[in-house]
């Protein structure tokens, strides 16, 4: 992965993933249904499940900090509804 990162960095390209989940105090009925189904299937050590969204983003930028800032801007402006959702940005390569 380090090699790939260097390669992408040279090519002015970086790849990120963003995970968006509902905030803890917001009811997640879909997660609840998935959880109940798994419990009904016999998986009983399950504590909780929250369902979310996953984005994979390629960006033409070689500076990691600049790229991260851009991704953060995308999240705040469109990808995430900050009233009800939290997000995590991860670098893939």
């Amino acid at each position, binding site marked *: 992965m380090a090699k790939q990162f260097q390669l992408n960095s040279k090519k002015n390209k970086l790849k990120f993933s963003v995970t968006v989940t509902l905030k803890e105090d917001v*009811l997640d009925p*879909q997660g609840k249904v998935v959880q109940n189904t798994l419990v009904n299937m016999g998986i009983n050590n399950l504590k909780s499940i929250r369902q979310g969204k996953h984005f994979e983003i390629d960006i033409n930028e070689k500076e990691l900090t600049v790229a991260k800032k851009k991704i953060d801007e995308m999240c705040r402006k469109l990808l995430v509804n900050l009233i009800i959702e939290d997000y995590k940005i991860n670098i893939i390569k």
Partner: protein
Amino acid sequence: MRSSVIVFPGSNCDRDIAVALEKMQFKNQMVWHKETKLPKSDLIVIPGGFSYGDYLRSGAIAGKSLIINEVKNAANSGCLILGICNGFQILTETGLLRGTLLRNKNLKFINKDVYVKVTNNNSKFTNKYKKDQILNLNIAHNEGNYFTDQKHLDELKNNNLIAFRYCDEKGSINDFYNPNGSLENIAGIFNSKKNILGMMPHPERMVDEIISNKDGVNLFSSLLN
């Protein structure tokens, strides 16, 4: 009174609202979302439907479209804005109304006629209704579960900015008659200046006895008042 109905790909109540507005003698124009200029309007309506297939979140993509900047400018200069159903969702996504609309608590798309109470009749949108009047209006949505933070909820209550609340036939507001899990049975809210109304029920579907009832008529005659 001049009205504009904004049309997005996936809007499907735009014709209904146009028919209702014209029936009430509004001079109406349809405005495609790619337009950058709004015709001179006293009222802008964001109609119901599934703009952009509800991709990302209901109303999220429409909330960033070109025409929305014009709608925001118009709103800030006091133009009346009415968002119905997906229109309400779009208004929350643009920030013109605060809060958001979550998935219905029972995870089902709900299409039925429900009772709502007019909790504030002191507005450009509701002045022809009586205070606490009970209306029978249609709802048809998957994300109508209104949610906001405690501070804003207090503000809505203290400043009388809740326009409609779901209730039973006799006007009692309770959990059983809350179709979608909405906070405090909220069905519609105003912004602080009360020139913007967002509501999940469809008043435009209730303007003719032949197909439904006429409980929606007074919303339009209020605007003309």
